[in-house]
């Protein structure tokens, strides 16, 4: 799925412009603990999280993830948006809670890798 398709599916707001909307995203992981993402998330392109701070973007960068979805209506701060633009990582925000957002993506073919 493209980022724009994911955004439509989750009724999500997209905060960044400097990301490519060509990449076919097939895998995701959901976590509030960045320690776990660093240690266990192997090849996932998408991160769903309820945690909002700049280190979420750093973590996604090191794990080579393409997009972050903040759940439960949480919104990134301006400094985070700037950091994500620089790293070409898409930032999205959805009203759905973590379980619900993950389930909708799973139902549409997104899978988890590495847990």
């Amino acid at each position: 799925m493209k980022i724009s398709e994911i955004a439509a599916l989750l009724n999500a707001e997209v905060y960044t412009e400097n990301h490519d909307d060509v990449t076919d995203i097939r895998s995701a992981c959901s976590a509030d603990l960045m320690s776990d993402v660093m240690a266990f998330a192997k090849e996932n392109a998408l991160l769903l999280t309820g945690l909002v701070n700049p280190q979420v973007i750093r973590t996604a960068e090191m794990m080579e993830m393409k997009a972050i979805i903040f759940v439960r209506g949480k919104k990134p701060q301006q400094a985070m948006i700037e950091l994500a633009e620089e790293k070409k990582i898409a930032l999205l925000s959805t009203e759905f809670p973590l379980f619900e957002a993950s389930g909708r993506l799973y139902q549409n073919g997104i899978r988890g890798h590495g847990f």
Partner: protein
Amino acid sequence: MGQVIIRDFDIPADDFLAAGEASSAVRKLLSQLGVAPDRIKRTAIAMYEAEINAVIHGHGGKAHVEIRGDKITIVISDKGPGIEDLELAMQEGYSTAPDSIREMGFGAGMGLPNIKKHADELVINTEKGKGTAVTITVYF
């Protein structure tokens, strides 16, 4: 890659926006040098874990990076409290991180074991009250 490339970075204390900048710069440099993607990822993960540790446990510090021939060596050092029991600290799940760090999504006690997993060589020199130096080597 015949030449030796040396880079030094400051790792500021208590700056959660900047934390990770050094690892990010090294990641970018390695990809410009054409290093294999899986080697870059290993390096980035190991270095970032050590960088975050220097920020949250070591009151900030510095990173010294040397790329020569077929390997990268990264030394992350700080003048923080040191690690009293290194064997214990290397175990998964051991963490002394305060709640304020856990709220940031860290402090699960996974960092040092994760560095060990991703580095080809890992040397940790630490002394209580003096500081910690983590040396990571990854072969390309």
